[in-house]
């Protein structure tokens, strides 16, 4: 790709407190407006990598890290980078739908309010826009001030996606966002991703290899903390170069 990478991971090592090496020498560039899928067996380091990208990894103590992650050319671990500002630009949606206590409206405006935006016209505007982008507007427009916990699981997850979108981030990290959803809700979320990549860069840990193949522009296969292979989705899922990738895709392990 000719573009400058949005995120650039350089020789990244990460070790948890219990001395388990979760990431070993990751090198990866991620570009604007792509859906990048990180897949592999459980405990291969996908979530660890995702959480490093917006420094949610800071919450765990006793970890050690080597290497660099650059966001638009700047090291995100540099001392002058404020983690809360970074997380507004690189937003995260979790595996379990996780609304905050409060109304749908409260959830959607939380990030903006914490950023100091009090103007209700701005807040209202972002609420409408983000709900439309997450394909949730029609379902909740009449009950914005009801508790977010009154929504179904699939709606809650789309609310969480909308909540991230309301911040107008540049990157959205999706950590297995359809794990708890029924097939119908899953396809609604997957469809909305295709819309979203017009505006955002999406990095996602998928629920399955099938899902990875459905949505990936590019994909990376992870195994035991290493990034085995990175390719365009169409290529990787049909003609993998590495034997281990092929074994995993064809269901021989994991």
């Amino acid at each position, binding site marked *: 790709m000719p573009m400058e990478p949005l995120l650039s991971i350089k020789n990244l090592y990460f070790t948890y407190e219990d001395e388990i090496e979760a990431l070993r020498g990751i090198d990866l560039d991620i570009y604007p407006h792509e859906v990048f899928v990180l897949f592999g067996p459980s405990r291969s380091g996908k979530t660890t990598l995702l959480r490093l990208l*917006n420094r*949610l990894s800071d*919450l765990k*103590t006793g970890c050690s890290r080597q290497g660099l992650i650059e966001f638009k050319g700047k090291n995100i671990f540099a001392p002058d980078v404020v*983690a*809360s*500002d970074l*997380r*507004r630009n690189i*937003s*995260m949606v*979790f595996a*379990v739908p*996780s609304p*905050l*206590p409060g109304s749908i409206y409260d959830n959607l405006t*939380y*990030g903006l309010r*914490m*950023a100091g935006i009090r103007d209700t016209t701005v807040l209202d505007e972002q609420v409408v826009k983000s709900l439309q982008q997450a394909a949730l507007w029609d379902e909740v427009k009449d009950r914005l001030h009801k*508790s977010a*916990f009154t929504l179904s699981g699939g709606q809650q997850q789309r609310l969480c996606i909308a*909540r*991230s979108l309301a*911040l107008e981030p540049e990157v959205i990290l999706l950590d297995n966002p359809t794990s708890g959803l029924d097939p119908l809700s899953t396809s609604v979320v997957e469809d909305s991703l295709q819309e979203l990549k017009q505006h955002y860069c999406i990095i996602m840990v998928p629920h399955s290899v099938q899902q990875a193949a459905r949505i990936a522009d590019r994909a990376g296969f992870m195994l035991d903390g290493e990034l085995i292979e990175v390719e365009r989705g169409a290529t990787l899922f049909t003609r993998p170069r590495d034997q281990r990738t092929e074994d995993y895709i064809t269901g021989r392990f994991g």
Partner: protein
Amino acid sequence: MSRQQAQKVIVAIITAIAALVVIPTILVIAFIVIQGIGAISWEFLTAMPRNGMREGGIMPAILGTVLLTFGTFIACIPLAIGTAIYLAEYAGENRLTRWVRLAIVNLAGIPSIVYGLFGLGAFVLFLKLGTSILAGSLTLGIMTLPVVISTAEEAILAVPQRFRVVSLSLGATRWQTIRHQVLPHALPGILTGVILGLSRAAGETAPLLFTVAAFYLPDLPASWFDQTMALPYHLYVISTQVPDMPVSIQYGTALVLLLFVLSLTLVAAIVRTRMRRRREW
């Protein structure tokens, strides 16, 4: 005996044991109410004592206990809640937090008379506050710290971790996360600890002995630097130190103290259930 029969016997025994706990509570309260209710009157609650405290009311002691409880609140609560937030949210496991926790456990185990002597040495004499409401409040405040810190910390830790992670992931700072996602949900638990701590402080006698309590004062306290009478100490005085004391006044005083402490506990229970009902997750 079959397993089912054994099960029934065990349940019956355990239920009986649990019921036994209720009996002394009811007996104590009933006894004091029956003996003391006759003494309660408007005059008893609002008048100064007369005739060597054998007649009249106990208003100065009631006022003193209210003032001391308020003073304890001011002296203890900000410090205790700040400590609890620090321990639960900011401090990792390090040498400092180990020392702080050790100190809290030890504070909780110190006999109350020792707090009284400490208050005498530290506040009354060293800081030259004299025997005063201020010195008494500070002494009671320190005594109340451990229970409030522990309950507040537990309440804070009981807030689901995912609320913190979600809040941070949406670009909130650590303090914003605590302020908007942790403290609101921890508040019922914190309030319970605060009120239980205060009600215990309100009933204490020993820490007051050398720091604030007066045997008898003809006037009400005019400032935080004055001595005051207080219900628990007054009860001790009229039960043991004054000859020919009418029994009804002794039990009346006990009843007022009991009602004061029980009403605090009741407030805690009401606040807790009301706030819990609002909780959604």
